[in-house]
């Protein structure tokens, strides 16, 4: 039972990270109907910027762990959203009216470019965050020992998702985003500045992705230049499972996927860990072709 709870909390933390990345995919898809393949790379950029700030410049040593991590979170989110904005300007804006496949290939190109840029800057080997960055002790809840970092990861993921929900459902901009996601043309006719919506989406999505990258670095302790592809694909799968374009769906899909993967690896087979994700995806899509919580509008084909 203890082992199960252990796996459960681990799965939730992993799922929280997937959910954060999935939100970026789903928001961009909702508004632009574009699979932003480079989003995984923005996530990786977040991880490396976190590494750069915390380890290379030794921010934790000079400011103390809590202040340093708080500051790093803000800086990483800011820098990655800047990168996301540049990406949108350079690789996607010129293709807004082009065929969808052209935008997909442009996204793939941007992804290859960013992945290799990261490799050229930080090298191909693993980078370790180091275990003494953060006072990581075990917290005992009713006999269950949970590392502090796991709680931090899950709590920050949930907090950010809650804030995003408030923003999307309560603010004017959130309303504009929802309107543009349902029907871009109609939203434009109603006076929504769709270009501004896209800009905002390309700031929020990458910021969440960058945060997820930093959390992965802190949680697993090491990062590699191709984590972007690995996590990106899984998170995109999570967004699809939840019903792409649906913000709640991305959160549910992410958490579900984290659980399935961790429990599958723990109780069935470690070797097949990465395959569970896709098997579950195919099974869900066979039963519900547009995901668990699909968009409310039917796309005409």
């Amino acid at each position: 039972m203890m082992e199960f709870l252990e796996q459960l909390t681990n799965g939730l933390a992993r799922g929280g990270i997937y959910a954060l990345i999935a939100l970026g995919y789903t928001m961009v898809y909702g508004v632009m109907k574009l699979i932003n393949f480079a989003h995984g790379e923005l996530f990786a950029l977040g991880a490396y910027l976190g590494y750069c700030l915390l380890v290379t410049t030794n921010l934790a040593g000079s400011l103390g762990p809590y202040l340093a991590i708080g500051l790093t979170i803000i800086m990483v989110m800011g820098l990655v959203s800047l990168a996301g904005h540049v990406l949108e300007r350079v690789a996607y804006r010129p293709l807004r009216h082009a065929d969808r496949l052209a935008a997909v290939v442009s996204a793939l190109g941007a992804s290859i470019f960013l992945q290799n840029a990261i490799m050229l800057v930080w090298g191909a080997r693993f980078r370790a965050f180091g275990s003494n960055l953060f006072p990581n002790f075990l917290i005992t809840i009713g006999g269950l020992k949970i590392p502090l970092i796991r709680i931090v990861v899950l709590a920050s993921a949930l907090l950010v998702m809650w804030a995003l929900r408030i923003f999307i459902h309560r603010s004017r901009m959130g309303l504009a985003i929802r309107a543009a996601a349902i029907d871009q043309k109609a939203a434009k006719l109603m006076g929504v500045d769709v270009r501004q919506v896209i800009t905002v989406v390309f700031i929020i999505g990458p910021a969440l992705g960058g945060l997820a990258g930093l959390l992965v670095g802190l949680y697993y302790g090491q990062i590699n230049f191709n984590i972007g592809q690995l996590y990106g694909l899984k998170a995109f799968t999570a967004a699809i499972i939840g019903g792409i374009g649906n913000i709640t769906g991305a959160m549910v899909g992410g958490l579900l996927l984290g659980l399935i993967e961790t429990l599958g690896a723990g109780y069935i087979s470690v070797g097949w860990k990465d395959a569970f994700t896709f098997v579950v995806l195919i099974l869900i899509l066979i039963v519900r072709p547009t995901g668990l919580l699909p968009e409310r509008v039917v796309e005409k084909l």
Partner: protein
Amino acid sequence: MKNHHHANWKANLAIGALLLIFMLIPWFFNAIGLKTGPYWLDVLNTVGLYTMLALSLNVILGYAGMFHMGHAAFFAVGAYTTAILNLNFGWSIFATIPVAALAAGLLAAIIAGPIIHLRGDYLLIVTIGIVEITRIALTNDIFGLTGGPNGLVGIARPNIFGFRLSKPHHFFYFIWIMVGISYVLFNFLENSRFGRALKYIKEDAVAAENMGVNTTLYKLLAFVLGSGWAGVAGTIYASQMRTVSPDSFTFDESVLLFTIVILGGSGNQKGVLLGSFMVIGLPEIFRNFQDKRLLVFGAALVLMMIFRPEGLFPPKAAKLKLSEAWSAKIEGEGDSFSDASSDRKFTGDNLDASPKEA
């Protein structure tokens, strides 16, 4: 009409001459005593193999318009089928070709059955899932036949009537003849009733269905045919490399094939041919960039799509014959009509404007 035939005849002659020159490349390398000749032939062989794969993907992605980003899975099934039959049962390479095609096609049929109706992007992620599951299954030594992460080694060379293909120039002819066969075969397909049905489905699946085209069946057939042909390419790959391992059949390979087809001009075989030279061949020429090659490649893909969003050679749209008066009018209208092909553009303005002009 006559003019059209005349132009065709000239174009065919030019293509024939180009083909002849191309087929003389190994001889030419040998004649000038090029030391790096075998290396460049190997590059051309790789280009050929990818061309064959891309042509088969073109049936699925280009003709039928299905977003398929997992083609490497069926390539893998073909390669492993050949490897297993050859190593465990001593089959000759040529004898394994039909079995490799059948195995890849059968797997495609089984997988595609329940997912064929999925909408564009959902299909895309499922096919990515298929290629990942396949790679993981091969790595985990599924059925105890695939040799795990190291794969299988020691596959025989192909043997034609006692002549063993072993040198790069042997494979050059073998591979490029297979490319030629693929090209002709799929060209027939494109212009057949089947090909026209696929084109219709790609343009408007709902309309096609309403006109009595069995869209599910045709899409399934295209998927199975393209995948089976990728299996044949797998056979060639296995016998050329003499070893197969899961690393050769990754998501990245599938992405490469996908970009070749889109870059060339989805649905146009000539474009696909040029696309594979650009995607596979050009990076070899720029080897001096070394580790920056992929960086440049990524940036080039973005730029290509910005400046040629429909690929190098967009497929020609079926043209409706218009009366001369209309043609003249359209010429006069200029830009407002040229955008009509893009379905997401707001074309209401253009339609309103035309009667005023008249």
